[in-house]
């Protein structure tokens, strides 16, 4: 069966909640990176000692999750509902095909490697 890579950028404070939701539906691993970026939120302004300055890149957390194709929709839905705050800057989710996967310890491949 095919394997999918799900990349999600979410608000950092939602990370724990999303992790819990994903493990409860059977996701067994994920990669997490602290990133900065901008989307339609496109930064904001703050004031330091009376002078305004732009925060062009907003801190986000990037999740990379590899699952079997049968689970991909459920993972996307779970992230989407858990990370949602209804405010601008909630993030994005992308789904990509994975050409191959391997577990380093055993040499198992693709679906078995996950």
């Amino acid at each position, binding site marked *: 069966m095919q394997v999918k890579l799900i990349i999600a950028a979410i608000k950092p404070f939602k990370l724990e909640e999303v992790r819990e939701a994903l493990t409860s539906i059977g996701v067994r691993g994920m990669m997490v990176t602290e990133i900065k970026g901008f989307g339609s939120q496109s930064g904001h302004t*703050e*004031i*330091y000692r*009376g002078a305004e300055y732009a925060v062009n890149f907003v801190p986000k957390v990037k999740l990379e999750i590899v699952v079997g194709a049968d689970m991909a929709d459920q993972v996307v839905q779970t992230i989407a509902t858990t990370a949602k705050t209804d405010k601008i800057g909630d993030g994005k989710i992308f789904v990509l095909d994975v050409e191959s996967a391997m577990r380093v310890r055993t040499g198992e491949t693709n679906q078995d490697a996950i």
Partner: protein
Amino acid sequence: MKILKYLPIAALVAAVPTLGLAQDAEVPAAVPTDVVWILNSLLFLIGGFLVFFMAAGFAMLEAGLVRSKNVTMQLTKNMGLFSLATIFYYLIGYNLMYPLGDWAIEGYFSALFPAVAVLESVGVGADAVDDYAYASTGSDFFFQLMFCAATASIVSGALAERIKLWPFLIFTIVLTSIIYPLQASWKWGGGFLDGMGFLDFAGSTVVHSVGGWAALAGAIVLGPRIGKYKDGKVYPIMGSNLALATLGTFILWLGWFGFNGGSQLAMGSIGDVADVSRIFANTNAAAAGGAIVAMILTQVLYKKPDLTMVLNGALAGLVSITAEPLTPSLGVATIIGGIGGVIVVFGVPLLDKFKIDDVVGAIPVHLFAGIWGTLAVVITNGDASIGTQIISIVIVGVFVFVSSLVVWLILKGIMGVRVDEETEIKGLDMSELGMEAYPEFSKG
């Protein structure tokens, strides 16, 4: 002989329970002159080491408000300036500031110039002390030196992150040996400003505005840090550690009790001790007023409170009460300090409008609030005249600003005062010192 020296004190201690029991007896005798002399000296020593600790306060405040690439340099400047102030106040400053009535030019220039400070001899007796009605010369020198060093500390923060080490230290020498002591002699040395009736209890003008004027002249000669002002816009440069900046502010706040309380210059009577107590309480109240006003004002103006402004607000409150910490009530002291907080919140962006880059807000805090504090004396002290206060502010201001400007321009001409562009961008720590404050967090 050593034991004999302590006998009068021993006798006093022994007499204390007797005084306590004899409730119906006659009013206790006045404090003996020896004891007054001892208590006055003690006030100077305690006040002096509290003001000394302000050097740590300035160092931490500045270390917190500069970027991490300039922290080692800022700390190096603070160590250097304090130590140089110590040496040059001894060599020249002390006797230039206190002519003790011996003027070369009456009221303007001490005749004790150039002359080093000399302390009383080891184990001096009551009959041979310099001033039996006052305090030990050692305690007086120690206490006054700390004010001189505080003045120099004010300058270093404003000029941070771009000034070369050695020209800065040379300026410190001129400031602490000549500029500060000379103008201080006009007031505290019994000179012409004192004769005019100018009132400045602990130095809103004599100390704080002087540091502020010298910093202003230096900031104008130096120019702003790279990237601070571009295309008519102000680009804030964040401090590296607000925990250190807050610690520094609280240390300064603590030191100020010695600064203002010690300036009562006497602790040998009930009246004096009551006054010192009033001063402590008023000084504290003014700092609180400045902090809270800055907090509320930044919330209202900018929608979020700005901690760096709250820190500056507390310090501005302290500067504001320094010219008259004794006569106000607690309420009035809080308000005087609170107005200092207003001055800082509007003073910081005002300097930015003129493209004068003051890294830590030293000019709004020490100069602007110093002027306000000097004027505020007339609110509660009936002996003060607003005209005399204004004239004195102007005289001290013109003298210090012009003489500082000349020194800065001479230094600029001889050796340059500013680091080159690459050094500034790379950071003074690695470029000038080859040493970082936080090497384990460095990107290199």
